[in-house]
């Protein structure tokens, strides 16, 4: 099976080359037979990449250490689940994983679009196959996962224990699923440019795939944050590391696109801008993979510095050049078909939302690449870290949070004064009350105060929208609150799913602001000794060391400490933290020692205990942190995922004859749009 997999990878290379060539030829010569052959070539590429992937999985699961990739990434003693996920833990495997997902996505996208987007199919197929060709070629020639060793090791090197975590098993594939999904909108955008079919034909398929990309990027980013928080022991979840940034970049531009595409759907505007966002999102995904894989920028994630960097750089600049040429030669075809009616409209709000999202993306990109620019221009290596990103992005983020509340409430085309008054009075008042109450309670830090006030405002807008919708359903259909809620969401998935995503965003902002009040204590405790302190809310805490224990399970040596924990005199239980040294089958140390963090979760704060070291066998050196509101980061993330799922869920097209309130409105005003639906 391993040999079949290796062979399949080479056949996939040929298939992708074939599909690229004949698909583009089919598009240029308007020959359906060539197009059909190109499409079949894409399907065959998918089949071959599946076989290649099965080959690699077989090598991993059979622990065939004669394969270099297997020997380098797993060991005999590793749990099977992490042997399975080792497929994407190294460079060669992750490139094959890229190809696997892209060929699957491409097959689905083309198979489901052949009739509806017939004119785009040859160009889209050619573009998807060209991207596939790049990844498969990189895998074949620069990072082949089937390369054999000329000796047979007794055991493999294994996987860093920090990566043997459910979060890390799921975080990379989700990011990949998100990254790769940007390739489909890109392919259709390129197809639309090639075919000069820049009307609404490409919008449907592009929106669906952009949404899928956003959904998986969201999951991937949140899982990565969670893993960093529970596994790395630094009491945080985001460090503005270049690789973190590179996953955030396509998320930002895809989010911008998902808003601006609504303007094109509704008004036929922003056609050029939307093409640019689709293309930029894809290029940023390639940039992200390039950053992760090239080692060109210093990063805690740049674990695989290898010769694929120049290949990625070439591909990146080639794709950029072709896109600029295509957009530049088709500017006239991209002219807007409608005009803006008012600066006070949802269109304008969405455009400012786009400005901020792209502005934040630019800031993150700029900060990420500036060390390279500095070294190139001055010969000086510098670091651009959290102080830079926080000071520049916090104001932009707060403006964006404000627009998260404004956008959904303001009317399409032109908002009237009465619309503004009625829609914004209650949420604005609620936000103001939140700010005033927190100020009265003693909160003086400006950024968190503004964040909570704005989060209150956004929450107010969402609650108001649900309230009005449910009341309307109750009035018309005599439904209960819960039934009304379910029907409201079920029948307006894009709108109310979007609101749920916004609720998750507001929650995330509030949780981020909570970390401004985090406190940390370095403590040294012998057995029976206690440490007493107060958390940021003023509760009294007492931690009593239960002593240091040692154990030697099969594959590791463990030192652990338990802290009996009391809050305001009430016993909460024991929080344990461990220091682990993993061993190979011969008892040699594998990797560096790692810490298992002890976390006591609660809605108000996490109590976070890290065993930093042990002295004299029973004296534990500990760091105890109180991290307010962290759990709301994960809940906010879940909400965003749920909202995303609701938005993505297929909805049957309904075109009922208008009746009731809508029927009596002047037809030109398109009531649903006018009033902000």
């Amino acid at each position, binding site marked *: 099976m391993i040999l079949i997999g290796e062979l399949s990878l080479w056949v996939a290379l040929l298939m992708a080359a074939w599909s690229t060539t004949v698909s583009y030829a089919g598009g240029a010569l308007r020959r359906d037979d060539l197009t059909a052959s190109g499409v079949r070539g894409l399907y065959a590429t998918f089949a071959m990449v599946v076989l290649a992937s099965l080959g690699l999985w077989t090598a991993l699961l059979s622990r065939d250490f004669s394969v270099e990739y297997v020997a380098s990434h797993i060991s005999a003693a590793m749990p099977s689940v992490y042997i399975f996920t080792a497929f994407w833990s190294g460079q060669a495997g992750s490139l094959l994983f890229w190809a696997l997902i892209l060929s699957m996505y491409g097959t689905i996208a083309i198979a489901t679009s052949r009739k509806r987007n017939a004119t785009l199919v040859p160009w889209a197929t050619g573009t998807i196959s060209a991207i596939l060709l790049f990844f498969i070629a990189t895998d074949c020639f620069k990072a082949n996962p089937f390369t054999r060793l000329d000796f047979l090791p007794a055991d493999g090197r294994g996987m860093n224990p920090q990566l043997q975590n459910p979060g890390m098993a799921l975080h990379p594939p989700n990011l990949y699923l998100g990254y790769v999904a940007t390739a489909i909108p890109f392919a259709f955008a390129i197809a639309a440019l090639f075919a000069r079919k820049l009307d609404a034909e490409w919008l449907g398929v592009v929106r669906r795939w952009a949404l899928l990309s956003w959904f998986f990027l969201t999951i991937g980013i949140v899982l990565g944050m969670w893993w960093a928080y529970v596994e790395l022991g630094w009491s945080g979840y985001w460090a503005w590391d270049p690789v973190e940034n590179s996953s955030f970049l396509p998320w930002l531009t895809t989010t911008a696109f998902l808003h601006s595409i609504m303007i094109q759907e509704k008004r036929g505007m922003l056609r050029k801008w939307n093409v640019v966002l689709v293309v930029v999102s894809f290029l940023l995904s390639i940039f992200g993979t390039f950053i992760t894989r090239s080692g060109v920028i210093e990063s805690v994630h740049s674990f695989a510095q290898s010769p694929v960097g120049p290949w990625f750089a070439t591909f990146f600049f080639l794709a950029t050049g072709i896109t600029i040429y295509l957009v530049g030669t088709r500017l006239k075809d991209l002219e807007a078909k409608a005009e803006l009616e008012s600066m006070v409209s949802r269109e304008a709000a969405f*455009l400012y939302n786009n400005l901020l999202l792209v502005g934040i993306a630019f800031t993150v990109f700029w900060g990420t690449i500036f060390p390279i620019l500095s070294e190139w221009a001055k010969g000086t290596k510098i670091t651009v870290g959290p102080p830079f990103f926080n000071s520049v992005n916090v104001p932009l983020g707060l403006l964006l949070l404000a627009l998260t509340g404004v956008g959904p409430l303001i009317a399409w085309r032109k908002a009237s004064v009465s619309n503004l008054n009625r829609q914004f009075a209650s949420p604005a008042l609620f936000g103001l009350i939140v700010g005033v109450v927190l100020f009265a309670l003693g909160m003086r830090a400006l950024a968190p105060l503004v964040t909570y006030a704005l989060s209150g405002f956004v929450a107010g807008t969402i609650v108001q929208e649900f309230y009005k919708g449910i009341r309307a359903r109750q009035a018309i259909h005599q439904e209960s609150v819960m039934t009304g809620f379910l029907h409201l969401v079920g029948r307006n998935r894009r709108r109310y799913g979007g609101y749920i995503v916004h609720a998750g965003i507001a929650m995330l902002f509030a949780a981020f602001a909570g970390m401004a009040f985090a406190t940390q204590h370095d403590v040294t405790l012998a057995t029976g000794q206690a440490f007493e302190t107060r958390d940021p809310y003023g509760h009294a805490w007492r931690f009593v060391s239960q002593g240091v224990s040692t154990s030697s399970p099969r594959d590791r040596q463990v030192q652990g400490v338990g802290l009996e924990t009391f809050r305001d005199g009430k016993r909460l239980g024991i929080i344990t933290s461990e220091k682990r040294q993993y061993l190979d089958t011969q008892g040699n140390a594998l990797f560096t020692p790692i810490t298992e963090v002890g976390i006591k979760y609660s809605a108000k704060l996490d109590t976070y205990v890290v065993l930093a070291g042990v002295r004299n066998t029973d004296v534990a050196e500990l760091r105890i942190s109180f991290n307010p509101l962290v759990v709301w980061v994960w809940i906010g993330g879940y909400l965003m995922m749920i909202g995303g799922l609701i938005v993505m869920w297929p909805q049957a097209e309904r075109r009922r004859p208008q009746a009731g309130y809508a029927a009596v409105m002047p037809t030109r005003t398109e009531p649903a749009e006018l009033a902000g639906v």
Partner: protein
Amino acid sequence: MTSRRDFLGRAASGAAAMLVAARMTPAQQRGRTHDSALVRDTTNLFAMDQGAAQPVRLPPKPGAAPSMTDVQRDELEHHIHCQCGCTLDVFTCRTTDFSCQVSPAMHRDVIALVKGGYTAQEIIDAFVGVYGERALMAPKKSGFNLLAWFTPGVAVIAGGVLLSMWLRRRERREPPRPAATAAGTASGPIAVPGVDATPEELARLEAAVKGDGDA
């Protein structure tokens, strides 16, 4: 014309030939020592330079007393970049799980300088003197680095101005639409009990209830 089956067959034969050729290429398989084969791309995390710490020491000031509290010292360490190869500050790196030996060494230097009576800025300058600008977590706001700090702000403000100008230019001049009355008209929307809304909002609700709207 070549049939699909013929084509696939030939493609597979070609690939097999390429595979055999690749296997026979010495450079692909033979030039690697046992160690290097396994060292490459193995740890899944960045390569740490455990020897990167250099002494940052200054004589204590006369009659020196600690210049700051432990909390202030920890805050100061958030502004000093660990040199182990990560992108973290000294405080974060030494309290993470990377088993770094560089950040604890830098931490010891910070403690000594604090005990020696040096201010936060003097300590930062001492680290920059030894390690260069890389000792900072963010570039200094001077010279070429001003580009780093001001480009994003200038870009966003310029974008905002341009967007506003573009919107103003595209704003259509037309007579205002007849305003709907709050109570509705004989042929207009009716009020929904318990919902204080304009006819436009009622229309939106209607659309929402019918399920033909979106966000």
